[in-house]
């Protein structure tokens, strides 16, 4: 167990370092923050002073080493725009994002999983085809298109709901639904194929052959097995709770982490972008570790996996 998690933790740490390194390099090669934050016609001395004060005149590798040294002291840098600690800026946006992504996660689970199971149990029926057609539509339409369609219908035409902003819970409905539908569609397809795979297994026929009523075959024999692959995709959804709403937050002018990221990238506000990416990588990696743990709970065959493939 310890070796298992030691190994996973090491891999997680490497993943995070790679994400941060990649972001560090790309951001510094793709534009000059000094010119973007100062205005273009700022005097050269002011630009140079800005570079010196943020350490941008140092060689890239020196900046990189300093950046990492600071991370280990808990310092994620300051925003170049208003000088506040980047971490504070990001953390204060998290509740707004979670206010969208957590309800959306419930929609994904509550809609996607039952839809997938129902479709699988009625394979090739009209019901199955309808559910799957909706699912294909749900995840092929990009969220900004879906979001705009919903705004057009419910805000502009019907006038039932506001089109953007964060004044009340009613403002959250359209963005939450937009996020939820896409995820539910993905999950429905995934659940359906996992169920179909399991329903074709000989142990399902064994359960029927020993007289288990069909409902109980589905509940007691098929679902616990189909849960194993489905957990992977749910883990991915949990991992993207923090940064999974970038596009939708922009469409609905929702002041969450995603919008902060868009603005920070546009301004080359290096510390803020890096802070968000670090947070995203950490959430995703944590979610993956939880998924690995769940695999062990769901599938007894994986419990003594560290003994190696032969064991």
């Amino acid at each position: 167990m310890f070796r298992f998690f030691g190994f996973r933790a090491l891999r997680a740490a490497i993943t995070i370092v790679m994400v941060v390194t990649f972001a560090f390099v790309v951001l510094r090669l793709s534009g000059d923050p000094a010119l973007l934050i100062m205005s273009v016609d700022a005097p050269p001395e002011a630009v140079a002073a800005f570079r010196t004060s943020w350490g941008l005149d140092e060689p890239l590798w020196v900046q990189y080493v300093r950046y990492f040294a600071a991370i280990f002291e808990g310092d994620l840098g300051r925003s170049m725009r208003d000088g506040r600690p980047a971490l504070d800026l990001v953390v204060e946006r998290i509740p707004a994002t979670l206010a969208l992504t957590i309800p959306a996660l419930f929609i994904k689970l509550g809609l996607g999983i039952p839809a997938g199971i129902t479709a699988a149990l009625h394979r090739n029926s009209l019901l199955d085809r309808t559910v799957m057609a909706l699912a294909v539509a749900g995840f092929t339409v990009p969220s900004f298109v879906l979001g705009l369609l919903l705004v057009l219908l419910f805000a502009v035409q019907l006038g039932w709901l506001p089109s953007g902003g964060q004044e009340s819970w009613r403002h959250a409905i359209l963005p939450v639904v937009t996020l939820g539908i896409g995820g539910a569609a993905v999950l429905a397809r995934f659940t359906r194929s996992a169920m179909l795979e399991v329903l074709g297994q000989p142990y399902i026929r064994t359960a029927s052959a020993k007289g288990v009523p069909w409902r109980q075959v589905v509940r007691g024999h098929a679902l616990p097995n189909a849960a194993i692959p489905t957990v992977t995709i749910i883990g991915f959804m949990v991992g993207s709770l923090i940064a999974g709403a970038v596009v939708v937050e922009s469409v609905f002018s929702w002041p969450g982490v995603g919008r902060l990221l868009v603005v920070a990238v546009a301004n080359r506000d290096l510390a803020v972008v890096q802070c968000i990416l670090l947070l995203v990588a950490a959430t995703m990696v944590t979610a993956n570790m939880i998924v690995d743990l769940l695999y062990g709970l769901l599938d007894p065959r994986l419990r003594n996996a560290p003994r190696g493939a032969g064991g």
Partner: protein
Amino acid sequence: MSLVAIRDLAVSFDGAPALRGIDVEINSGEALGMVGESGCGKSVTWLAALGLLPGKARISGSVRLEGQEILGATPATLDRVRGGRVAMIFQDPASSLNPVHRIGKQVSEALSLHRGLRGAAARAEARRLLDLVGIPDAARRLDAYPHELSGGQNQRVMIAIALAGQPELLVADEPTTALDVTIQAQILDLLGTLRREMNMALVLISHDLGVIAEACERVAVMYAGRIVEEAPIARIFAAPAHPYTQGLLGALPPIDGERQPLAAIPGQVPDPRAMPPGCAFAPRCAVRLDACAAAMPEGRAVAEGHRAACLRAGAMERVLA
């Protein structure tokens, strides 16, 4: 009255016939072997009889259990029959057990369904059953998962599950095919012993006449979705009446004498979508008549308890005698 009587059972998948009129009966306590090559319909016969085929299968005919029709019976009736009166075990024990449930739970489930046993009583009975089928250290094995047992042990667990409902008939579908030879013999012995002790009828489905000879009294030979010959086991070896059966026996390697190439039956099993109008075996048959291509031969009695679906059956009997 026979325990199970199957009449004119026909099954097709997407228009392709898999069974083309099966008539077979089995009496209480009897052991019947069903032999034939892959795809001849021997497993489909019993999967259809128990309602275990997928929904796209088209099934017609009649399956009576002590006179009661079970083909097309309600799910509730079938759930009581399956496992309770007719149990079935399958070819690949490793994938026939649910990988995420403990052995004890899988045995107890059948005990709870058919005998109302729960909790400690179910566990004690599950232990007794594992003992009965020869699983060493049964008490500990109750908490094991299928992947922790060998193939032979898993097949024993399958048998224990089948016995849990105290069935009158056990259908064993190629129960030893996935196992190695020594384990094969042990499982066959076990099935034979259990059958005698519990006065249970046995249908043993196999492609291996040797396996059937060891465990059965009577054998039905199947070819392309039909029973082509049915006889007591000793008679099938002594006086096979259908050319296909003769071909099967000819393909068995002799245990003594000089080494010689095995006599394979020439040709291929016909495509189910393009069955010949007459006898399905005629295109491969060395002794076919013109009449063989005209109409499907009905089974005719060759001797007491011996029927063959061949126009020449009676004639060849005389030649052999």
